C-alpha cells in the first residue's frame, strides 16, 4: 500500500539523531513487547508479512508520532484480535483492571 511507512525519498523528516551509547531497550515495556512478539511469531500466531502489514495499517499520524516498539505493540494487538487469539474487549477490560490496581 502507498502508506506512510513507504518513506524512501521523502523530505521534511528532519535530522537523523543518533543517541550516544544507546541502550538496546529504553523502557521495560519495550523489552516485553520485543519478547512477546518473537514468542507469538514463533508460536505461529502470524507471519512476518502479516506483521509488517499490520504496522503499515496504523493511522499515519500515530505511526510518525509513536516509537518503534509502540508500532510492534499496535501490530500485535491488531493481529491477535484479527486471528481470534484474544478480543479487543478482553484487552480493554484487562487494561482497566490493571489501571485500577496501579492507581
Amino acid at each position: 500500500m502507498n502508506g506512510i511507512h513507504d518513506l524512501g525519498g521523502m523530505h521534511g523528516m528532519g535530522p537523523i539523531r543518533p543517541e550516544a551509547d544507546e541502550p538496546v531497550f529504553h523502557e521495560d515495556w519495550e523489552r516485553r513487547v520485543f519478547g512477546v512478539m518473537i514468542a507469538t511469531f514463533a508460536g505461529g500466531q502470524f507471519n512476518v508479512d502479516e506483521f509488517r502489514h499490520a504496522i503499515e495499517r496504523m493511522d499515519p499520524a500515530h505511526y510518525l508520532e509513536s516509537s518503534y516498539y509502540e508500532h510492534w505493540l499496535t501490530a500485535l494487538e491488531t493481529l491477535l484480535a484479527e486471528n481470534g487469539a484474544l478480543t479487543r474487549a478482553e484487552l480493554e477490560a484487562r487494561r482497566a483492571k490493571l489501571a485500577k490496581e496501579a492507581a
Partner: protein
Amino acid sequence: MASHRHNRPLSEVELRVKALESLLTEKGLIDPAAVDEIIDTYEHKIGPRNGARVVARAWVDPRYKERLLSRGTEAIAELGFSGVQGEDMVVVENTEKVHNLVVCTLCSCYPWPTLGLPPVWYKSAPYRARAVSDPRGVLEEFGVDLPAATEVRVWDSNAELRYLVLPKRPAGTEGMSEDELAELVTRDSMIGVGQPRSPGA
C-alpha cells in the same frame, strides 16, 4: 517472571503491554520464561561484536573474505553466527572506489545475528527517507568523509536478504591480531554510516 512494584500510575502504553502479556500468558499462548530468555538473548548476548569478528577475520584471511563476499550466510555461520534476521546474508565490500550504505526504507530490516538489534535512528523516518535519495548528505551528517571520486552504493533491504558492510581495513594495522582488529570495527562502519577506528585512536 519479575514483577515490578510501581510507585506511579502506569502509562497507557505500559498498561497495554501488561494487558497483552498477561492475557497471552493466561491463555497459554506465550510462556513468560521463554519471553525472558528472548529478551536476555538480544539484550546481552547478540550484538555488533559478532559482526566485528567477521570483519576482522576477512581482513586477515583473504580466502575467508572471498567466501564472505560470495556466500555470506555460510561464511558468517563458520564463526558461529546465524539465525533470526540473518538467514540470507549479503556482505558488501567498501574499497578505495566504492562506499556502501545499508537502509530499510519500509521498516527496519537489519542483520540481527551480526549486529544485534538496530538503533532507533536506523528505524526512524529521517534516515529511512534520506539514505536512498541523499546518501552523501547522510554520510556528511555522520561525519564520514569520502574522496570525491567514490561511488556510493545504497542497499535498501526491502526483501529478506540482510546486508552487512565490510569496511576497509584501516591503515597502520599491519601485524595486529584478529582480536585487536575486531576492536577497531564499529557498528556504524558495518551499516556504512561510519568508518572503523584507526589504531591508537
